[in-house]
């Protein structure tokens, strides 16, 4: 079953082509790593799927329907920036999620926040950047979505806390749900990936099951990536 499908998807800004003819199918129940250097087009692709950009060419289908209200009901998206209004408290942010998303599990979210020592009464403006990122990840993972899209969820987190975050992602991921995780910190997450997508200069270079790739190249995804892009 095709959860997400991109057909001939392109996005340019004036003469600058950020994405070129992306064709991509992501089925249900997969964890997919979207791997690429900074500026490779990862965020552009993710923003297109989330209706934050309008494609120059091509289309995106979610459950065989174009991006819109229905697709937003089933996609849970974590952007690479703070996107909550800073004047709200953690509690208000939770109620807001609850009001807008039918699939939001308020109690589970509250429990996870407690486990990770985040105070419900705290104002978002009083939180450190790391805490804000943690809060957003918890909010996003507390939905029972069909597709989770996490844009660089590890970037601002110190290495010690990364394991915690991976745990949280794995624990909360539903049976048939898929997850797209974009990152340049490959070694930290490659263990949990079903499939990997290498993206460079706006094109998909490679899309393969992770274990198959390891088998073929006898190396870690991280090494293969470094070799391919010489970084």
């Amino acid at each position, binding site marked *: 079953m095709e959860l997400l499908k991109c057909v001939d998807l392109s996005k340019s800004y004036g003469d600058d082509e950020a994405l070129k003819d992306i064709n991509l199918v992501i089925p249900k129940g997969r964890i997919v790593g979207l791997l690429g250097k900074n500026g490779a087009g990862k965020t552009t692709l993710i923003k297109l799927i989330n209706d934050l950009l309008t494609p120059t060419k091509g289309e995106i289908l979610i459950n065989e329907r174009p991006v819109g*209200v229905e697709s937003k009901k089933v996609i849970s998206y974590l952007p690479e920036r*703070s996107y909550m*209004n800073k004047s709200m408290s953690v509690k208000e942010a939770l109620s807001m999620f609850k009001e807008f998303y039918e699939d939001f599990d308020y109690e589970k979210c509250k429990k996870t926040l407690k486990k990770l020592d985040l105070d419900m009464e705290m104002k978002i403006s009083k939180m450190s950047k790391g805490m804000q990122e943690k809060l957003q990840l918890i909010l996003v993972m507390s939905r029972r979505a069909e597709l989770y899209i996490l844009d660089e969820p590890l970037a601002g987190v110190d290495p010690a806390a990364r394991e915690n975050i991976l745990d949280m992602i794995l624990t909360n991921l539903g049976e048939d749900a898929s997850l797209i995780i974009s990152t340049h910190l490959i070694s930290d997450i490659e263990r949990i990936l079903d499939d990997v997508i290498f993206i460079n200069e706006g094109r998909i270079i490679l899309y393969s099951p992770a274990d198959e790739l390891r088998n073929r190249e006898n190396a870690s995804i991280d090494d293969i990536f470094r070799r391919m892009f010489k970084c």
Partner: protein
Amino acid sequence: MLTKVLKYDLKLTYKTLAGFYTVLMIFAYAAGDERFFNGSYFSRFIEELLKLSTAALITATVVMSLWIVFQRFAENLYGNESYFTHTLPVSRTTVYVSKFLSLLTVLLTSAAVCMAAYFLAFYSGGRVSEWQRVLRNYSNIYGISIAIVYLLIFAVCMLQMICLVQCGHFGIITGHRANDGRNVKSVVLGFCMYLIINAAGSIGFFAAGSFFPKVRDLFYNGTADIKTLCGLLSAAGIYYAASAALLFAICLKIFKKGVNVE
């Protein structure tokens, strides 16, 4: 869904505005309550100072209301918050209608608060009845309820304001379709739209002058009878209302095509 979106739009707008309203009302009350002033030179000085501050605060509240409406619009639809707004399971029409309704609400409440402050500070106590007497006098002279004239002026001002804010929204929406220089383009485009609307209005006014001698008199003498004034005000009101409706339709149409957030 509209009520939910509107609820948060209003909540986040009034979080800042409520403070302004409160300060303004406190100053206005203090400036207008004569019990505070015993007639000494110093208390006169304080009274004048408070009145002056109230006048300044009224201006500030008007400016702030407009600023907050624009700031919320740009941040919520194109800033960091837009990542939240545009990924909500809500149609773009709902999002835009909510923004329009909150602009109406803010303009109305700010107008109400400013007027209340004005009366509290400058027409307190006995002076309110004096003002009522003046009104009654006028209405006797002109044979038309002066309240209607005031109401018309108020309506035209409000509609003009609604147009102004929507021109700003138009600027922000079109400016953010560009790939760079978005803020500058927003301001320039919004300004241009406002100029166009008012220029077209003025041309209509001149045109009316060539058909109606009484309107022409207004150009020569600067005076007109109350009926002509009411007619002109009504025409202006209708013009601004139509412009507002047109702007609404244009903005919504462009907005529905999709966004490109940074």
